[in-house]
């Protein structure tokens, strides 16, 4: 009975993961496909990987994407972390208002967020890379706040007070006692911001100016011309990078656990 249950569970999870990873598998296969067609297998090749660095359209879009992602995630992390500390110390109803406002970009439809930001930017500044960064910060900060805030809430106030009690100034106490506890939350907030920024299409699409293209928007505009196979190579590389990072993080934290248990 129990065996049947375990087997059913395993099969079910296998189907779910097959569903989630099937397109990724297809794209990885396409990146080695020696044919311009998406549907015909023309043999194994590495030429798309070799050509990738010389494809200016893709490399431009890649660097634009990276610039936007790194700038917006870093700024969102700083803004969000300091906001989380501030909100944590606010009076209850002030904090509730701030959290309500923080929920707006998360709950609002992307298309509405994108359009409303576009209307604002066209009025006060021009559309371009800068406006995309502003837009990305706007939808990334909530992820940082909601990753940092729980860590603050789970920390007892008495650690901070204990540091003060032992002679630390408030700033020293924050740096030595609160900050080390916040780091995991800040990191996962940053990671979420990076992921959301990399994966965003809709908001970028509305807030970018002419001539600015991230990987997503470039793909969308060039759909009719057909996809350059170098893109498969690039996204396979990006995916592998993330995969390896995940393995390292997982391996490290498992080591940590083993160490703690001993």
């Amino acid at each position, binding site marked *: 009975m129990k065996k049947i249950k375990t087997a059913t569970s395993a099969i079910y999870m296998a189907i779910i993961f097959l569903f989630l990873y099937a397109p990724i598998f297809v794209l990885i296969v396409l990146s080695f496909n020696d044919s311009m067609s998406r549907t015909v297998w023309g043999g194994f090749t590495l030429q798309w990987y070799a050509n990738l660095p010389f494809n200016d359209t893709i490399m431009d879009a890649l660097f634009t994407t990276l610039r936007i992602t790194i700038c917006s995630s870093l700024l969102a992390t700083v803004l969000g972390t300091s906001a989380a500390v501030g909100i944590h110390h606010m009076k209850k109803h002030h904090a509730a208002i701030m959290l309500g406002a923080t929920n707006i970009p998360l709950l609002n439809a992307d298309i509405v967020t994108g359009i409303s930001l576009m209307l604002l930017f066209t009025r006060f500044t021009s559309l371009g890379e800068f406006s995309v960064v502003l837009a990305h910060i706007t939808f990334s900060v909530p992820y940082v706040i909601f990753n940092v805030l729980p860590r603050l809430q789970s920390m007892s106030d*008495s*650690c901070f*007070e*204990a540091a003060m*009690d*032992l*002679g630390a100034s*408030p700033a020293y*106490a924050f740096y*030595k006692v609160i900050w080390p506890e916040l780091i995991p939350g800040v990191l996962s907030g940053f990671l979420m911001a990076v992921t959301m920024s990399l994966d965003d299409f809709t908001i970028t699409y509305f807030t970018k100016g002419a001539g600015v293209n991230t990987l997503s928007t470039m793909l969308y505009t060039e759909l009719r011309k057909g996809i350059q196979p170098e893109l498969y190579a690039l996204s396979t590389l990006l995916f592998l990078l993330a995969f390896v990072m995940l393995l390292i993080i997982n391996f490290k934290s498992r080591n940590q656990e083993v160490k703690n248990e001993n």
Partner: protein
Amino acid sequence: MEFIQFDKVSKSYDGQLILDELDLNVKENSFVTLLGPSGCGKTTTLRLLGGFEKPDSGNIYLNGTDITLLPANLRPINTVFQKYALFPHMTIAENIAFGLKIQKKSQDYINDKIKYALKLVNLDGFENRDIDSLSGGQQQRIAIARAIVNEPKVLLLDEPLGALDLKLRQSMQYELMKLKQELGITFIYVTHDQEEALTMSDTIVVMNQGYIQQIGTPEDIYNEPENAFVADFIGESNIIEGIMIKDELVQFLGVQVPCVDKGFGNMKPVDVVIRPEDVELDQPGKGFMDGIITGCIFKGVHYELDVQCGNWEWMVHTTKYFEVGQQVSLNVIPFNIQIMNKPASEDEEVLKEDDK
């Protein structure tokens, strides 16, 4: 000049008055315990002294200096927190060294101090262990070590033994008393556990709802409670409404009994306190009142009996076993009858009711 002095200190949170013009003096080198039920203001008093809160009005003096506005990090006072508040990302040595590093002591001095403090709390050799690897009792000792290496003039302890089990709590009580003697500094201890307070302190401050109910030695507090709240909170008591007929004669439950108290006036309503261990049981008719045993529970050292006398149920502690249903009579020697004034205001009446 008093060592620590609270002068008319008031504090309220969200419009709720926690301390109302509190006056409190503490002598140097004493072991003072603030005792009371939760919400009585004892922790607030401690936090005001530690510098974590600022009073709404009134002043706090240490050694004659006004420290009311001095922030926590500038006070020569250290605290042992209720849930230890050890820094989870630091080793034990780093935790203990925290205050010393801020004082910019030399590394040699710090190392010596860590060794000394760990020895003092019986945890030699624990320097490089993680906080997570310690038991509750051990964490408690580290919290104490971390506080005392800074050589504070006053050590504040906020229910430090609350999270420990009974056996450990008792052995920690003796260790704290020993520590107090070795360090020769003032301890201010907050607890709601009356037994802890009676065991360790040389002065007990009984508090309730922001007011000091009584200050005295453990013996004073236990034997001569000044009001029904203290009597009820410290140990177990029979508290009975009575009338002081005249000096040395009190009437309660319909009988007149001699006592030793004077000066209450004639025909004054009072509260009569009789400790359960002070009631003696005898053959029916021999005492001042007859009753019937309605309950008998073995408590280890003694039996706890319920004795029904008319409408009143007495609590009695004896070392002898009695059958339920047995007829007995009650006797109390005059010295063990404690007479207290009725609460003067309705407020105090309310407090008394709340506690029951």
